[in-house]
């Protein structure tokens, strides 16, 4: 190794290219925090509906605005990612699919499922809107 000691170095995070499994691991956490923040929108929606028609119209108006839709898109993608990767965590907890080839295949399964579910949701959503 590069330090001349012959001993392995731990990865230097600023120059070490993270493998996809590591990127997906931290993404699970980032989407989790993002979704927690996104629950504020859920609270607003429900409380506005309970408060009355004017408050509900304001909330629906915000959600239907460009910025609102952008937030909803990001939120839906994060939700599906966290859902799919969360199911993968449950599979790991059952002691299955822990070997590297399985992990690398399931990277693609989770990313593919997230993309398909997000796009499908928006096609259906915009069609019924």
């Amino acid at each position, binding site marked *: 190794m590069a330090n001349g000691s012959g001993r392995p170095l731990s990865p230097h995070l600023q120059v070490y290219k993270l493998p996809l499994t590591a990127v997906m691991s931290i993404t699970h956490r980032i989407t989790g925090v993002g979704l927690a923040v996104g629950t504020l929108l859920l*609270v607003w929606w*429900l409380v506005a509906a309970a408060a009355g028609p004017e408050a509900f119209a304001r909330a*629906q108006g915000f959600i239907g605005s460009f910025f609102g839709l952008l937030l909803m898109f990001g939120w839906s993608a994060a939700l599906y990612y966290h*859902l799919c990767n*969360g199911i993968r965590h449950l599979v790991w907890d059952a002691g299955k699919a822990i070997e590297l080839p399985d992990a690398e295949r399931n990277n693609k399964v989770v990313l593919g499922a997230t993309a398909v579910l997000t796009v499908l*949701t928006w096609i259906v959503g915009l069609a019924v809107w």
Partner: protein
Amino acid sequence: MASNSKTLRSPLQVARGLGSAKHGTEHWWSQRLTSIALVPLTVWFVFGVIGHLGAGHAEFIAWMRSPFSAVMMVLTAVVTFHHAQSGLQVVIEDYVHAEWQKMALIIGVKFLSFALAAACVLAVVKIFIGA
């Protein structure tokens, strides 16, 4: 391990009761339990949101007046906030190391989560009983 020859307590006796092996399993289990519950709840919620995009107030109220929808919405809110606060607790524990900051953040996140969950439940109950 350097053992003190002046004590009769075995190394196991010294170590017993130390460490964090008390509530860790409970926290881990509650995170898994809530995540399993959130799989069907999330699917229901996404379908519900899609079905009520741009819906008027009356349409939304009618949806929440159905006992099934009301129960599902209450469960979704409560389980989501329970899952969120337990996940955020782990994130805070991993990255915030000053004890008072860590405790303040964890307490703040838990209080806020349960307050927001209560607000959601009250909103659904208010709509359901038509108050």
